[in-house]
C-alpha cells in the first residue's frame, strides 16, 4: 500500500486524529490551496514528464520557500525515481512527489516523531530564543496557557529586558493564562532574571518554567554571547536543563531562517523549532529545508491568533494538510 493511502486511511479511521487534522486543514487553508492547486495544475498541463515539467515543479517548490539547495536535491531524486520506475506520464507523479516530500521530513526512520521533552516528576525548563518579531512572547503565552490547562504549574521568566513593552506583554499573557511571571525592571541582566525564575520555579514547585529572551539578530555577536550566558546559568542551576531550547521562526521568513537555525544552535543547543504565523499565506516550506540541511525538528506550529492555535507539530497532519485536496480526488 502506498504511503499516501496509508496516511489517508489513518485519518479516516480515527476520529480523534481527524480533529487535529481539521485544525491543520483550516489553519493551512491558504498554504494548501496554493500549493496543491499549483501542483494539480502542473500535472494537468503536462502530459509527459520532461525537463520543462521539472523546471516548473522547481519554481513551485521555490515559491514555497523550500530553498534552492533542498529543491535541487529533491528534483535530482525525483528524476532518479522517474528513471527507476520508468514513469512517463505525469499522473503518477503526484504520489512520487508527495512521498519524497514526506521522506525529507522524516529522514530514515519514518515513525519517530520527536515530541516535547517534558520531565514527569521534576522541573522542566524551556528556553525560547529567536530573532526580533517572530512571536516568541506570544508563543510562550500560548504554551503557558496550554500547560496550565493540562494541570501543570507553570512559571514564566521575563528575560526580554530590552524591548519596550516586552515585560508588560508577557505579564498580560501571565494574567490570561493565570500563571506567575518572574520579572525585574527593564534593562536588567537577562541572566539574572532567568536565575530568579529558576529559584522561584523551584520554591513554588512548578512543573514547567518557560524563559523568554529578547529577540536578537543572529549576526550580533555580543547578543549571542549574552544568550550563551543565559544558557549556562540554566545549565548550572539545574543539571540536564534546559530540557528544550525552542527556536521560534516566522513562517514567512525566507532562506535566512537557515542562518538563524545554524547560529542559534551554536549559541545554545536548539532542540526544536516553533514555526509561527503558518496561517495566512505563509508557506513554511523552510521547514523542509531546515530539516533537510540542519536536521532540527519542528515541535510547535502557530496556526492562528487564538490561544488554542498553537499546536504540537504533527508531521503526518502537516503533510496531510498540504495534500488534502489531492488525496480526496
Amino acid at each position, binding site marked *: 500500500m502506498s504511503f499516501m493511502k496509508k496516511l489517508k486511511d489513518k485519518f479516516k479511521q480515527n476520529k480523534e486524529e481527524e480533529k487535529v487534522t481539521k485544525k491543520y486543514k483550516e489553519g493551512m487553508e491558504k498554504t494548501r490551496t496554493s500549493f496543491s492547486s499549483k501542483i494539480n495544475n502542473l500535472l494537468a498541463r503536462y502530459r509527459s514528464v520532461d525537463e520543462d515539467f521539472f523546471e516548473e515543479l522547481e519554481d513551485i517548490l521555490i515559491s514555497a520557500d523550500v530553498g534552492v539547495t533542498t529543491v535541487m536535491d529533491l528534483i535530482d531524486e525525483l528524476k532518479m525515481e522517474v528513471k527507476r520506475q520508468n514513469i512517463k506520464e505525469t499522473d503518477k507523479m503526484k504520489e512520487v512527489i508527495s512521498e519524497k516530500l514526506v521522506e525529507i521530513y522524516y529522514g530514515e526512520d519514518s515513525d519517530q516523531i520527536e515530541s516535547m521533552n517534558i520531565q514527569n516528576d521534576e522541573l522542566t525548563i524551556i528556553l525560547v530564543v529567536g*530573532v526580533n518579531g517572530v512571536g516568541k512572547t506570544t508563543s510562550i503565552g500560548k504554551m503557558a496557557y496550554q500547560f496550565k490547562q493540562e494541570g501543570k504549574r507553570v512559571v514564566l521568566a521575563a528575560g526580554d529586558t530590552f524591548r519596550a513593552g516586552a515585560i508588560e506583554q508577557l505579564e498580560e499573557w501571565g494574567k490570561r493564562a493565570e500563571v506567575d511571571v518572574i520579572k525585574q525592571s527593564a534593562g536588567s541582566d537577562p541572566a539574572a532574571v532567568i536565575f530568579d525564575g529558576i529559584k522561584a520555579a523551584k520554591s513554588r514547585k512548578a512543573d514547567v518554567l518557560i524563559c523568554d529572551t529578547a529577540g536578537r539578530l543572529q549576526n550580533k555577536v555580543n547578543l549571542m554571547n549574552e544568550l550563551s550566558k543565559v544558557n549556562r546559568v540554566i545549565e548550572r542551576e539545574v543539571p540536564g536543563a534546559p530540557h528544550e531550547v525552542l527556536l521560534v521562526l516566522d513562517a514567512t521568513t525566507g532562506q535566512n531562517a537557515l542562518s538563524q537555525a*545554524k547560529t542559534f544552535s551554536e549559541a545554545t543547543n536548539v532542540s526544536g523549532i516553533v514555526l509561527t504565523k503558518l496561517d495566512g*499565506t505563509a508557506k513554511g516550506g523552510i521547514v523542509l529545508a531546515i530539516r533537510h540541511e540542519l536536521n532540527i525538528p519542528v515541535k510547535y506550529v502557530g496556526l492562528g491568533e487564538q490561544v488554542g492555535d498553537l499546536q504540537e507539530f504533527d508531521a503526518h497532519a502537516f503533510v496531510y494538510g498540504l495534500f488534502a485536496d489531492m488525496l480526496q480526488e
Partner: protein
Amino acid sequence: MAFEGLADRLQSTIKKITGKGKVSEQDVKEMTREVRLALLEADVNFKVVKNLINRIKERAVGQEVMESLTPGQQVIKVVQDELTALMGGEQSKIAVADRPPTVIMMTGLQGAGKTTTTGKLANHLRKKHNRSPLLVACDVYRPAAVNQLETLGEQLNMPVFSMGTKANPVEIATKAIEQAKAEHNDYVIIDTAGRLHVDNELMEELEEIKSSVKPDEIFLVVDAMTGQDAVNVAESFNEQLDLSGVILTKLDGDTRGGAALSIKAVTDKPIKFAGMGEKLDQLEAFHPERMASRILGMGDVLTLIEKAQTNVDEKQAKELEEKMRTMSFTFDDFLEQMGQVKNMGPLDDLMAMIPGANKMKGLKNAKLDEKQIVHVEAIIQSMTKKERQDPSLMNASRKKRIAKGSGTSVSQVNRLLKQFDEMKKMMKQMTNMQKGKKGKGMKFPFM
C-alpha cells in the same frame, strides 16, 4: 553554509572564459544559471528572477568585454546594472501636507517592526527636519503594544496619543489628529496593529482609518528577511491602501534581503528607509545600489578593484609578489603592506567589499578590529631589524622584550608569529596557483 555569494558561484564559470574577447551565448547561459540561483537564495521572488534573467541574457550576449574587466566581471556588471535600475534611485523624502499636521500611517504584518520604526521615524523627523511629531497607538490587539509605544515616547520625550485597548482604532486615529491640531504637532504617525494581508476584516479596518484620516504617507513596514511571500504581502497591501512607500527593517542582520527587489518590482513603490539596528537613531535612508550588491552577495567588487588600483603601487606589488614566491617575505614587507591596505580605507569596509571574505576559514568570525592592527604594528616595530628579517631567531627572552616594548603580552607575540608563518605558507600556495598568470598585486596580508 547555504549562502554563497554570486561572485563565488561564478568563479568556476569565470575561469573557463577568462581570456576570451567576447561573451558567447553559452557563457551567458552558464552564468545566468548561477545568477538565478544566487538571486533565489537571496529570496528574490522567482517570477521577478525570471524576468530579470531574460533581460540580462539579452543584454549580455555578444557584448564586447571592456578592457578593464574580465568577462565574468562584465556579466556581473550587467547584472548589477539591471538590479540597480530595477531598484530605482534613492528616495527618502517624506511628504509635507499643505496644512499641518502631515499624517503618516504605518502598516504591515505582525512582527515586522512597525512600533519600533514608528519611534525611529519620529526621531528622524525631529532630528533631521526639526518637526514635532505625535505618536498614535492604534494597535489595540497585541498585548502591551500601546505600552510599547508609550515607553518609546518616554525614551524620546515625545507625546503619545492612546485611548487604551478598548477603543476603536478609527476613532483613536481621528481623535489623535484633533489633538495634534490643538497642540500644534506638525506630524502625526499612526502605529497600526500587525495583520496578515489575507485577513479581510483587519484589512478593512485599515481602509477605514485611511478614509477617515486621509494620510499623506502610507508606509508598508517589511521585514528584510521575508521570503517568497513578500510579493503577495506587498501586492495586497498596495492594492487595498495604495502605499506611498516601503520601510525595510532588520537590515542589520545577515539576510541578503531579496525581498526588497521583489517588493519594488511588484509595487513600483520606493523603499524609503531601512532599519539598521535596535536603537532609535538607527533608521537610514535606503541605498538602492548597495542593496543590489548585497542581494548578489558579491560585495562591491568593482569599487574594490578601483580602490586597489589607485592605492597599491604597481612596482611595489611586483616586488612583493616575487618575494612571496621565493618565501623571502619578511616582517618589514608585512608592515609596508599593512600601511598600503590601510590607505584604502577602514578595514571593515574593505572586508565587506571582498566577495567571499565572510566565508574564508578563520576570517569568518574574526572581528576586524582596527586596534588589533595597531597592536600588530607595535609588535613588529618592537622587533630588531634582524628579527624582522628572520623570525626563526625568536626565543623566549626576545619575545618577552618585544611584548614589553609593544605593550602587549608574550601570547600575543606568539600568535602573531604563528599567523605570520601560516600566512607565508598560504602565500606560497597562492602564488604557485597563479604562476603564469599576471597577478595584479591584490593580496592582503591579513587574509
